[in-house]
């Protein structure tokens, strides 16, 4: 009797087994100034590959960080394997079998494969590591994945693709049932991608759920069972992969009308001021040719990892070039480092203002004057504090940087004001070409408009302006001409009036080499 009841009980449980292994609903998450997730719902089934899609900043990564317990949610419900989760953190997520394989691999490159796989839960016998046992277990897991990696190799000696396999092996070794892969193919070759896909299919056949985040839309069609699309921190839709098409996915991703206002002035397009010819620098800058004319703003569009930042850094001389020439007003420039570029009047407002743009612990005054100290000091290097103050005050006033006084540490300013400090560093030099890399990232709408106005002022004054942005509406609203990059190459060019979001997105996801060459000719 008793055993019968148990059997019936088990059957009932199986009948009621949840269709979804992950159910998230009404998830909200705010960061200062941004609602990163707005009432998002999300489901994952056992034994499926779900592609999570959206433009840069749509909230995909934030949602996955909530699922893996890295960020606490502000509100909303998380159900994993049918169990409603209250307090939810990284440790809890791990216990439930959620594993995230990051875009940047997180491994100790000096340790061996086996040591990495068992990191933090090493097998021991009476307190002594049992190296052989760990190696054997690692070999067994790697064998199950059907990859040829010796568990005793040092991880740093492996190719990136192999390291990724080790990450997956590590996830399997803790019996992860839910695997999140964030841009797993961005560093892989075509053959390595095939290997990865084979493993993903095996994981799926094994009944595990895989969440796959990628900007490479053509991959989605080949690997995903279902797609979920997000935009501006909101859940938009989800569909079965076979019921949809690429254009439909793209239209859901860009979806919105350009509703924000972009101040735009029209200028007579003048002569050519700046030209880059056949620039090559590493994998992410391949054969770049571009020109800037007076009186126009050139927008550089593309998805993350398209090589736009690398291109600006190579032009500015931060990273070494393999080949290529740079011309300013028809004269060739020799740029060996940022110093040469600055001296010639070509400047870069870098993407990551905390890392590359500012000395955050120094005062606003010292930051603004740093590249221009040669102008305000005599030939013995004595800095004229009065001219320095005058210069700094001028830009604080002109750019309306809000601060108590110029001596405060730059770190204490808001993002928008910090960005204005970075921009004003370069205005004092009478630069001829200004390259902005993501100048409006993480700043509020009002500050964005001020940055646009500033770019317009430069344009009006005949200064060459190039402007890298990941925000499509911004690119379309501000630029006079748009260049699209993908995989380190220029894959498209549009005049402002001709471009549509769908067309740009198509070019930005154009990973096929032959196609890119054919189209750009």
């Amino acid at each position, binding site marked *: 009797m008793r055993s019968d009841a148990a059997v019936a009980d088990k059957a009932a449980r199986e009948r009621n087994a949840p269709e979804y292994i992950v159910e998230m609903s009404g998830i909200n998450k705010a960061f200062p100034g941004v609602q990163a997730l707005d009432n998002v719902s999300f489901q994952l089934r056992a034994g499926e590959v779900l592609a999570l899609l959206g433009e840069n900043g749509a909230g995909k990564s934030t949602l996955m960080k909530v699922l893996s317990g890295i960020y606490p949610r502000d509100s909303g419900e998380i159900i994993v394997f049918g169990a409603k989760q209250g307090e939810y953190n990284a440790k809890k997520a791990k216990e439930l079998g959620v594993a995230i394989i990051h875009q940047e691999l997180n491994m100790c490159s000096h340790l061996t494969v086996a040591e990495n796989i068992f990191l933090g839960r090493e097998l021991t016998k009476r307190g002594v590591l049992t190296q052989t046992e760990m190696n054997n277990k690692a070999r067994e897991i790697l064998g199950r994945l059907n990859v040829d990696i010796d568990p005793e190799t040092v991880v740093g000696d492996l190719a990136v693709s192999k390291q990724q396999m080790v990450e997956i092996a590590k996830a399997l070794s803790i019996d992860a049932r839910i695997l999140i892969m964030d841009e797993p193919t961005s560093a892989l070759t075509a053959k390595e991608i095939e290997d990865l896909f084979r493993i993903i299919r095996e994981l799926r056949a094994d009944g595990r759920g895989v969440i796959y985040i990628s900007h490479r839309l053509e991959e989605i069609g080949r690997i995903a069972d279902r797609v979920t699309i997000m935009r501006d921190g909101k859940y938009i839709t989800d569909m079965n992969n076979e019921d949809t098409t690429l254009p439909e996915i793209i239209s859901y991703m860009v979806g919105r009308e350009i509703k924000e206002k972009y101040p735009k002035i029209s200028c007579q397009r003048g002569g050519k001021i700046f030209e880059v010819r056949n620039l090559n620098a590493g994998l992410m800058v391949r054969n770049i040719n571009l020109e800037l004319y007076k009186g126009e703003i050139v927008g550089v569009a593309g998805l993350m990892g398209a090589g736009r930042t690398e291109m600006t850094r190579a032009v500015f001389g931060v990273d070494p070039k393999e080949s290529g020439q740079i011309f300013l007003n028809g004269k060739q420039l020799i740029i060996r480092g940022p110093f040469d570029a600055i001296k010639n009047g070509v400047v870069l407002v870098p993407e990551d203002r905390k890392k590359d743009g500012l000395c955050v612990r120094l005062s606003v005054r010292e930051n603004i004057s740093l590249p221009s100290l040669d102008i305000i000091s005599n030939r013995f290097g004595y800095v004229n504090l009065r001219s320095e103050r005058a210069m700094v005050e001028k830009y604080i006033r002109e750019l309306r940087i809000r601060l108590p*006084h110029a001596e405060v540490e730059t770190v204490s300013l808001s993002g928008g004001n910090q960005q204005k400090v970075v921009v004003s560093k370069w205005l004092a030099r009478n630069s001829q070409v200004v390259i902005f890399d993501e100048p409006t990232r993480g700043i509020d709408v009002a500050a964005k408009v001020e940055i646009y106005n500033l770019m317009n002022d430069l344009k009006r004054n005949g200064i060459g302006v190039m402007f890298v942005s990941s925000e499509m509406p911004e690119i379309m609203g501000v630029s006079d001409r748009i260049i699209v990059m993908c995989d380190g190459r220029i894959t498209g060019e549009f005049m402002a009036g001709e471009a549509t979001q769908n067309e740009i997105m198509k070019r930005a996801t154009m990973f096929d080499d032959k196609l890119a060459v054919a189209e750009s000719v």
Partner: protein
Amino acid sequence: MNTDKTRRGKNYFKRLLAVRGMGQVISVTIGLIALCVVFQILSSNFFSPDNMGNLLRQIAPYLIIGIAQSYVLITGNIDLSIGSIMGMSSMMAATMMTKGVHPVWAILTTFICCVAAGVINGQLVATCKLPPFIATLGTMTIARGIAQIVNNNHNTDTISIGIGKATTEAFKNFFYYGKILTFGGKMDAGGNLIGGFSIYSPVIIAIALWLLFNFLLSKTRTGRHIYAVGSNADAARLSGVNISATITAAYVVSAACACVAGLIVCATTGMGAMDTGNSYELYAVAASVIGGVSTLGGQGILLGTVIGAAIWSVLQNGLQFAGAPVAIRNIVIGIIVVLSVLLDVLIRRGSQRRLTDTPFLNSLLNRGQEKTESRV
């Protein structure tokens, strides 16, 4: 009327605090005063005129090597070779003088060698990108070896055998024994002054070096570049700063100061000793860090290094006066160093949250600001 006056007072205080790192300097100055008071209570002779004169003379070499280390620390690096360069300087100059080389030429040659050592340090760290700890550990050992080899692995004889008594006196007076200002004290039977307060020549040398290098650090392009490199080398490079030249400049300043400190030691004894300056690189770190120079770079002012060097010497001198054995002195000083670095770390951690320099003083400052704002 009255509020006007207090507001002006507050503004002055605010402006003083707005100078970067001043908060920390004020905190440690309060600590220094407290230490002095404690030592005066423990031994009533602490504040006597002749001890004060002596104390200032003891501070001088620590201040000089403190300046040296502060320069390098502000660029975000470290110089472990300071002590050995002191030894090298002392031994080279003394050996030459015992061989009859005039002090001026001996000093000049020594100085050039020390500066060359600084250039090598700078190039190893900035151009070859070696970790500064390892690079200067190497040059530290090499410089010590040079100090030993110049006189065939022996301390030198007294320098007067080479350059004569009168020149030796001049050399010793210039670097150590000369007095500038004297008051108090008594004449003994032979007409020599006993006791009393004097300002000795090392103090003058230290002040001169401090004025020079403080000017260089706070008023010139190079100084600004030193802060920028220490604060964020990537951003400095993208702003057109020559990182390699800046770091090398800091190491050269460091080696030059260490050279002068070595000459002072040489003049003190009138001979060269091979172990001159042993561990001084670490005393220099202590003086800098107590004074608010961060080991992480980009922060600190040389005024703080003065206070740091003073605290270091006051502890040595005061504990000695209070009759503490050497072992106890070392333990107490070690604890003080750890505590002051801990304070630095805690303040930094706190400032990441509150974005202020020193929580205590800034809370005063902010309260002042809120008040003025609400008044408006």
